[in-house]
């Protein structure tokens, strides 16, 4: 019983840490490239509005980056304090991947960040551009290595077990494991969409506050187009990722679909309350043959069911159904809301109608959607990570075998401390975003309207 308590508390603590952490890389991965784009447009056109956009969003970037760094450090300690079994068992594989994440990526970001944030007036234009690109490449590499490791935990290969310890047989097989390309692209697109909706959400708020600056118009156009172009790609990529999961982790897909029996003509369940005790769905609302069509591309395709993953003695070997089922639906629902909103906005802004073309209800809809990327990303991660249970490394190491021998009271006390700190920081983060937005909107409102002015000539040597 005591071991179970430590296990559950450690899992909640890890989930809390990693959920809090992922919010910020999700922003910085894509926002770094948006900043590169702003800087590039400034270098090409000399239009200082692009730098105004850069300076506003680089503040958001700096804040998000700091929160990402500090919560990321917490993660690297958690492996040792709460999950020593993970490194003892698969350390030979997880170790080098984490090491490459730190050495290639983390440093690239952290060192050039100083020049990117504060160096605009101190270094030549090309070096400032280079620092911005270096930080963007760093965040991308960071994401790559972490997703390699995470994907390997879902679809492990390229190793052999000797005395309970994994030893590497092929690094190529480990790095390019079957789910890696799908998961990586899915996550990068999620980051892009999160940023697109934060940009449009904050932009819409500024517009509603009376900001009519050219800088705002430019960022709104970038944000709306980014959202409208990325969301169909993401829906396609999500489908591909689902098919990949069906091949390698059928139990997870069965939980996502809420399908209990392996059979053909499986309906697409839109709403249901999965009941694990009775092993059936209650209040089911479904589209006939839908799941078979999506997963097997034919109405009588056979889709695996959860009952296949119950051992002879009744031990359940599939993930908990309801959380996977629901988080998947939240993610997909937000995805389609993003599609509707961004395409409506792109249509309303067509042919030079610009931000004026957006009706007020549409502007107001963008404001709460600023956080939609976060919610969708978190639900997506809950789907895939809870869907991996009871395994920590699929088929290799169970979660309960990896947990450390720490008294439940200790884990409880640290868990509460982390939760309090995270709650305060999240409120402060959103509060500061709103404050910066208001300040920017007021600053631009009071400024005289500008045409094509190029701003103060403080950086006379644009790169290239």
């Amino acid at each position: 019983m005591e071991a179970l308590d430590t296990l559950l508390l450690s899992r909640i603590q890890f989930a809390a840490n990693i959920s809090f952490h992922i919010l910020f890389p999700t922003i910085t991965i894509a926002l770094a490239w948006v900043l590169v784009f702003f800087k590039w447009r400034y270098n090409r056109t000399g239009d200082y509005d692009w730098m105004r956009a850069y300076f506003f969003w680089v503040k958001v970037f700096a804040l998000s980056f700091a929160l990402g760094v500090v919560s990321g450090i917490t993660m690297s300690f958690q492996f040792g304090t709460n999950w020593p079994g993970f490194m003892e068992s698969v350390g030979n594989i997880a170790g080098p991947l984490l090491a490459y994440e730190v050495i290639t990526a983390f440093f690239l970001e952290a060192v050039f960040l100083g020049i990117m944030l504060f160096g605009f007036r101190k270094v030549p234009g090309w070096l400032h551009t280079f620092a911005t690109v270096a930080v963007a490449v760093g965040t991308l590499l960071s994401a790559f290595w972490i997703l390699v490791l995470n994907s390997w935990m879902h679809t492990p290969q390229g190793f052999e077990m000797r005395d309970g310890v994994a030893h590497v047989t092929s690094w190529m097989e480990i790095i390019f494991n079957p789910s890696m390309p799908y998961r990586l692209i899915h996550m990068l697109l999620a980051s892009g969409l999160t940023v697109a909706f934060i940009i449009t959400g904050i932009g819409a708020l500024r517009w509603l506050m009376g900001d009519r600056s050219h800088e705002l118009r430019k960022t709104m156009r970038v944000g709306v187009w980014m959202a409208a172009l990325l969301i169909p790609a993401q829906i396609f990529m999500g489908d591909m990722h689902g098919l990949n999961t069906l091949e390698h982790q059928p139990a997870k897909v069965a939980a996502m679909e809420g399908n209990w029996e392996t059979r053909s003509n499986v309906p697409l369940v839109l709403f249901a309350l999965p009941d694990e005790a009775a092993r059936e769905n209650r209040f089911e609302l479904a589209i006939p043959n839908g799941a078979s069509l999506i997963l097997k591309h034919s109405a009588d395709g056979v889709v695996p069911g959860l009952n296949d993953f119950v051992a002879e003695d009744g031990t359940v070997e599939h993930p908990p159904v309801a959380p996977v089922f629901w988080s998947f639906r939240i993610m997909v629902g937000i995805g389609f809301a993003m599609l509707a909103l961004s395409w409506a906005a792109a249509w309303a802004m067509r042919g030079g109608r610009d931000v004026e073309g957006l009706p007020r209800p549409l502007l107001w809809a963008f404001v709460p959607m600023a956080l939609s990327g976060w919610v969708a990303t978190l639900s997506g991660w809950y789907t895939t990570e809870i869907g991996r249970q009871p395994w920590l490394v699929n088929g290799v190491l169970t979660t309960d075998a990896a947990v450390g021998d720490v008294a439940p009271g200790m884990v409880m006390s640290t868990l509460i401390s982390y939760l309090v700190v995270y709650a305060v920081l999240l409120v402060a983060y959103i509060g500061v975003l709103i404050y910066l937005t208001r300040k920017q909107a007021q600053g631009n409102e009071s400024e005289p309207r500008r045409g094509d002015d190029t701003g103060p000539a403080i950086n006379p040597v644009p790169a290239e």
Partner: protein
Amino acid sequence: MTLFGDPAIWLPLAFAALMGLSILIYVILDGYDLGVGLLFPFATPDERDRMVAAIGPFWDANETWLVLAVGLLLVAFPLAHGVILTALYLPVAIMLIGLILRGVSFEFRVKAPAPHKWAWNTAFFAGSLMTATSQGWMLGLYVMGLDYTGVNVAFAAAAAVFLSLGYALIGAAWLILKTDGDLQRKAVAWARRSIWGVAAGIAGISAATPLMSQRIWDKWFSVPEFFLLAPLPILSVVLLAVLWFALRRLPTEDDEFAWLPFTATVGLMVLAFVGLAYSFYPYVVPERMTIYEAAAAPGSLFIMLIGVLFVVPVIIGYSALAYWVFRGKATELRYD
């Protein structure tokens, strides 16, 4: 070469050296910005902005050395990582919360509305204090063998105080280097006050380690080791004397020798670190687990070594670039 004969011998050694180097660089670099945080309550609001400006462009990269150090422990010595971090569960958690508070306060204190600034200043100080004391506590407990006995806890508490004073000293020394005028004069006074704690701390740990373990006693107090190692304590005393003398005279008219306190403090830290490393080798968990017992498979170590050897010079190169760009006295930090 026999040294490179058996990869099960030289790879763990190489990684222990790299990990030691990361810890040393971390303690020096993050030491000075944690120290600046510890001195925060003694400064006026304007001075606080200049103090943050003196560390703002660097702290992110400085803190990353901790990630590299714990990362190397995690990946190169997975068995020791679990033992050490579960034994230090609570202080690690306190340190992490301290690092979180400290790190985010940098950003929040300049971006939050002015009436909230005091709260982030407090969080900045509290975070620096939590980090410094918990690191000192962990160092003390590690030196004493990771067991929670009465003596060990008392020693750990003393180490928490001494390491914080050490960070305050190097923080003040950094401010002497990076600021001028009243703040520089104040920094000299702060450094003078913390130097005694540092001397006591180094002496205390130097005395405690050989007394704790017969093995460490024999490593230091036998011939010829005793004479070969004599430069370590002698140089430490010399550096302390130089530091004490310099702090009497600073600041000078033309700002000459402003670099001296920082350099001397770094020297002291290096000497103390070399002494500790010599005492504990080959153990990674004191008297319980050697680096060879705790190491990961040679194949995995080798693939990491390639990455590390390629990247560490690059890191040092562009760290130097960042320090060059933000050289000289600290000026106001501006995004635009």
